[in-house]
């Protein structure tokens, strides 16, 4: 073996370790940071207090509750949702052979946005908003998918077009709901939801998110090498013994479930699925065997970072959709200028 092998290996290992540590550090930071100052030791003892109640004895009740009921579920949600956006973005870019798409291309976010607005207008309870957002996200992609089935030629192009059409349809419907909404009460709620936030996350939001996201990430992890073959196009994938239609259908189903689960908890957060795989390619190259884990870890780290900023930068909360755009746009511009993204 030539001598270039060893340094490359070493570099890969270091990059991998750094990528794995980044979300962990930011997760710990998310527990430490906040308006209400809590020392690291108290945070640690609060975390352990459900198992060892005596450790939490001398900590103020407010601090313990803040760490366990507010900061911990919120950080977990950020971790999972970021990972989900990063992973599904990388998968969609591969199967659409296009580095400029993410899992929203088929209209899931617009559908979820409409569902959430509808629930906020008619029902107003937190869990109903989550269910409506999830269901309408799936409905939008379902419409796009079955709509594209009406046409025989170039299915991928028609599917993309249908996704855009369905997306703008639900966008218009959401605008209609906003127009009808009470401007003092419901309208701000809808607007704030559409900008994305993790401020309302509690433990009750998490079970579906955890189950769907972990199963989905496991699936994307397992098929990650096949994404390379799928990204060459249908004819080549078929010549290499893969059924691209079936594989893509499963990836679309998994990614849509994951995205709908994420949006239904956090509201609309853009850019992560689009930008993170590019950053991943810059660090580990385009091979999805490494790119998929890198995108998942970077996505998790990015949303934790954004949420930490959103919570602490100003006295009030900054919507995540605002920050991801503000941070995401310059990052994407920089990568397009300097990145060797293929």
């Amino acid at each position: 073996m030539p001598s270039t092998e060893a340094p490359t290996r070493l570099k890969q290992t270091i990059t991998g370790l750094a990528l794995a540590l980044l979300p962990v550090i930011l997760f710990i930071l998310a527990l430490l940071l906040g308006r209400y100052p809590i020392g690291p030791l108290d945070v640690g003892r609060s975390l352990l207090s459900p198992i060892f109640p005596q450790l939490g004895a001398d900590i103020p009740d407010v601090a313990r509750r803040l760490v366990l009921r507010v900061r911990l579920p919120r950080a977990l949600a950020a971790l999972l949702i970021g990972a989900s956006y990063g992973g599904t973005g990388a998968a969609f870019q591969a199967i659409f052979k296009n580095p400029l798409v993410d899992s929203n291309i088929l209209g899931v976010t617009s559908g979820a946005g409409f569902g959430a607005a509808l629930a906020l207008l008619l029902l107003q309870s937190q869990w109903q908003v989550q269910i409506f957002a999830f269901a309408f996200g799936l409905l939008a992609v379902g419409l796009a998918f079955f709509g594209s089935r009406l046409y025989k030629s170039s299915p991928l192009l028609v599917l993309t077009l249908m996704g855009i059409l369905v997306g703008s349809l639900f966008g218009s419907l959401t605008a209609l709901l906003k127009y009808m909404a009470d401007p003092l009460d419901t309208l701000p709620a809808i607007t704030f939801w559409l900008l994305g936030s993790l401020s309302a996350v509690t433990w009750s939001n998490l079970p579906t998110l955890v189950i769907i996201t972990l199963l989905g990430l496991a699936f994307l992890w397992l098929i990650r090498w096949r994404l390379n073959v799928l990204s060459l196009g249908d004819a080549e994938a078929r010549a290499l013994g893969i059924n691209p239609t079936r594989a893509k259908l499963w990836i679309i189903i998994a990614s849509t479930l994951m995205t709908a689960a994420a949006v239904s908890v956090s509201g609309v957060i853009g850019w992560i699925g689009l930008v993170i795989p590019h950053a991943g390619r810059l660090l580990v190259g385009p091979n999805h065997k490494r790119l998929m884990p890198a995108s998942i870890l970077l996505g998790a780290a990015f949303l934790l970072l954004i949420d930490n900023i959103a919570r602490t930068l100003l006295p009030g909360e900054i919507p995540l959709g605002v920050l991801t755009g503000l941070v995401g746009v310059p990052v994407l511009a920089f990568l397009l200028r300097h990145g060797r993204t293929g």
Partner: protein
Amino acid sequence: MQLQANHLHFAYLPEKTVLDDISLLIDPGETLYILGRNGSGKTTLLSCLAGLLEPASGEVLLDGASLQSFDPAERARRVGLIPQMHTPAFGYTVNEMVMMGRAPYLGWLGSPNHEDQSIVDEALAQLGLFELRDRPYTEISGGEQQLVLIARGLAQKCQLLLMDEPTAHLDLSNQHRILEIVSQLADRGLSFAISSHSPNNALSYADRVLLLASGKVTAYGNPMETLTEPMLSAIYGIRTEVLTNGDGKPLAVISQRPMALEPTALRDPQSPLGQIFARSQQEPQLILVTGLSGVGKTTWCTQLISLARKAGLSVNGLLSPSIFKDGRKVGIEVVDLHSSDHRQLASLREDETASMQTPRWVFDSDAMAWANQTLSDSGKADLTVIDELGPLEFAQSKGLTAGLVKLDSGDYRVAAVVIRSALLPQALSRWPNAIIVNGSAKNLS
């Protein structure tokens, strides 16, 4: 491994047949070249042979077993396909590209392991690509990319590799490099089916050649038998010449340009035109006078006619000079060269509201009938001129159909027929021995 295709039919749309009754055989270690014009069905045929498309009828057999009976991975372990060159969306390294050849051996959820890597290393080393293995595929040269795809076929361990125009866009040196490697791999027992636009490469490297025209097999067999002047002229629609060495072994195929003949050369019996007239004593000679609209094809014929008459040769047929008014072409006349009678054949459509689909010219059906009658009544003269045969005649069997009948039946000695360049392929497949002449007024002294 032997691949056999029996009576393949394929159509993307029911009414448009792309492949029509194709049968072929590829033995182990054999190289089949598939030649044909753009759109003749080469890529579709390769896709059917690779099992990517299912033929409407007919079958593809691998060692006697139907290709459709294999699942996609089993099939990909036997038959590999290298599609036409394209740039992937992502810049995978050469190593990663070749690794994708291992896909048919890995399960749905599998990733390549050390064993796969050593197979890839071997394939890379075999084609001299080992040093390139960490370079992005998108950044290496076209010749190297083609080699990488061949290496992927080797990593795939298939026994038949189908290549769609592997030498398109490659310089002479890279073409040579690729084809020599293909030939050496064929010596080791790998079979190839290669679609190509180069009859010369087929002459040098093919064991068998299949000539495809509009989805039908025009010729199939060894290169010596198939790559002949009439066959190549018929499928490519141009005059070709096969250059041979002293023993008659074909060396190269060249395309001939239209001859630049001056009508005045008729006076010189040694000139090409004089020789055409001399040969017309034995068998009919057909001259297709061609060129873009307005280059002077009719003028060329007029010159030839007047010189032929001066030389005492008999002339018949039809000439259709334009009628000009205020410097604008407003009509077409038809002149019987035997009697000098003439009629107006067509006039410009003056109706401003006419849509783009309607023809610009309104033909007089009585004049057309008269012209056809004149042509079919005319006997065998020394020179027959037909001006002109166009899309109406070739595509719709309307217009001067008597002209087609006369030429098909060989009822002439020398015929000079005006035809636009775009129709030459159709004319040549109808009359493969026709002589093509550049009817440009530039050639007139």
